[in-house]
């Protein structure tokens, strides 16, 4: 069967003048269309590096990453990237921030402008489109950041601990928010996180990486995505079970 994303035997070595470090030993991984996959692992295991390789920003030492059969470093803007901090540009209004991707790709299609406005409307940001990011709450900023990536209609979303910098209450709200937006827009996503609960409650599949040089250590499936509210997902036995299993793999 054809997979949307195929990661085949990827390895990566870091070179510094003093030393050569093996960051990623050998990772193979497939992600199907509309699937939500989380990657967890001990800190420093190269999760973020793996995302950069998937995004085509770093070239692996060996192995290949293909999206729809094409190497990802050739098809960059098919992949959307979300970071721990929202990285909105303070000198641009919400609308100008969201337009950034279209400007970069020189996409002046009126249809895209409509799509962009419909996204802003759908997710309650249209009234704030002329405001500067400083006037928005942390949750709204992260939503703007997500829409900024969605505008480019990415086939794959990479989420690099996008909730890590938020305080507890905002975090709960933003996770629900982002997860339902991803569900509604039916985006294939890969989430990197160190929060096991986040991984267990959000995804169809959880990949556990070993410590450096990292390999895929275990893989768990989850059926929790059918339940709409994340709060409810966390109350199920399956949730507890998955978290326990991941925890055992990590310790």
């Amino acid at each position, binding site marked *: 069967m054809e997979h949307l994303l195929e990661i085949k035997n990827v390895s990566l070595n870091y070179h510094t003048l003093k030393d050569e470090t093996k960051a990623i030993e050998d990772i193979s991984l497939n992600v199907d269309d509309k699937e939500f996959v989380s990657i967890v692992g001990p800190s420093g295991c190269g999760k973020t590096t793996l995302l*950069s390789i998937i*995004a085509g*920003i770093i070239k692996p030492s060996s192995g290949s990453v293909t999206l729809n059969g094409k190497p990802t470093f050739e098809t*960059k*803007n098919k*992949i*959307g*990237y979300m*970071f*721990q*901090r929202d*990285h909105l*540009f*303070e*000198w641009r209004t919400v609308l100008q921030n969201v337009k*950034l*991707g279209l*400007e*970069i*790709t020189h996409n002046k299609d009126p249809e895209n402008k409509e799509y962009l406005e419909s996204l802003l409307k759908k997710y309650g940001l249209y*009234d704030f489109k002329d405001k*500067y990011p*400083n006037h928005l709450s942390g949750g709204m900023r992260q939503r703007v950041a997500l829409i900024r990536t969605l505008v*480019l209609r990415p086939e794959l979303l*990479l989420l690099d601990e996008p909730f890590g910098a938020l305080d507890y209450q905002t975090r709960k709200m933003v996770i629900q928010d982002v997860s339902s937006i991803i569900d509604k827009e039916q985006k294939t996503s890969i989430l990197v996180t160190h929060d096991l609960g986040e991984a267990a409650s959000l995804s169809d599949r959880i990949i556990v990486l070993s410590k450096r040089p990292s390999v895929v250590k275990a893989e768990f499936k989850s059926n929790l995505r059918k339940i709409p509210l994340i709060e409810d997902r966390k109350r199920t036995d399956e949730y507890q079970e998955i978290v326990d299993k991941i925890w055992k793999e990590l310790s």
Partner: protein
Amino acid sequence: MEGVILKNKVKQKKLDYSQEHKKFLARHKHKKIFILSCQIGILVIFLGLWEILAHFNLINTLILSSPSRILTTIGALYESGELFYHIGITLFETLLGFIISTVVGCLIAILLWWSDTLRKILDPYIVVLNSLPKIALGPVIIIWVGAGMQSIVVICILITIIITIISMLNAFRECDKDKILLMQSMGANKFQILTKLILPATLPEFVSVLKISIGMSWVGSIIGEYLVSSAGLGYLIVYGSQVFRLDLVMASTLILCILASIMYLLVALLEKYVNKKRS
């Protein structure tokens, strides 16, 4: 619509401030007035004392001049039409040096940001140029570009440009790496990263560099005029000291002081405007 409502709310709020808050505001205002009156007071006492001591011949006015004599000198310069001539020349040199060093300095900084290899190659030269007292090159410059205004402008640029290059390059390089990664993930090329991220992100640093470099330009043009000139405020100062007309020296210094302050104030206003737009 929303803005109007918000404004009305603010207005209303001002009316029903609590007694405590009103007291706080009054205290704040009193302190501000006190500071301002002290500032003016110091100036008035200093000038007054100077004038009185000069008037009763308790100090040597030949060496120390006096406020009234300085004003008379400025008046005389104005009458003869020389005042604006000399101001114009110095102002022209300073502004020309300031503009050229800002534009060229920023272009060089962009070039060095663009090519890491070039930056590393030129690094020792920039370090040496930065630590060198540029004024030591004055005589060489006069011989190379000729005695006249062109030398003064070149000296002015030399003094100003290095600080612009170093400060702007640092600002460029300190730009958030993740923001660059974000742009790359959207497929941005280096030129787009420069124009859409690096330049707008470093605008506040740019304005604060302007504040430093306008001061440096004044240093450059005055020192240049000390070395080689036949007009300008620096020339008047050197000429005045040579013929022992301290009135002229003091008068020129005072004018210089006022001009430099005005220019600094303009840049400071620009900075305030830029920062206000950002927040």
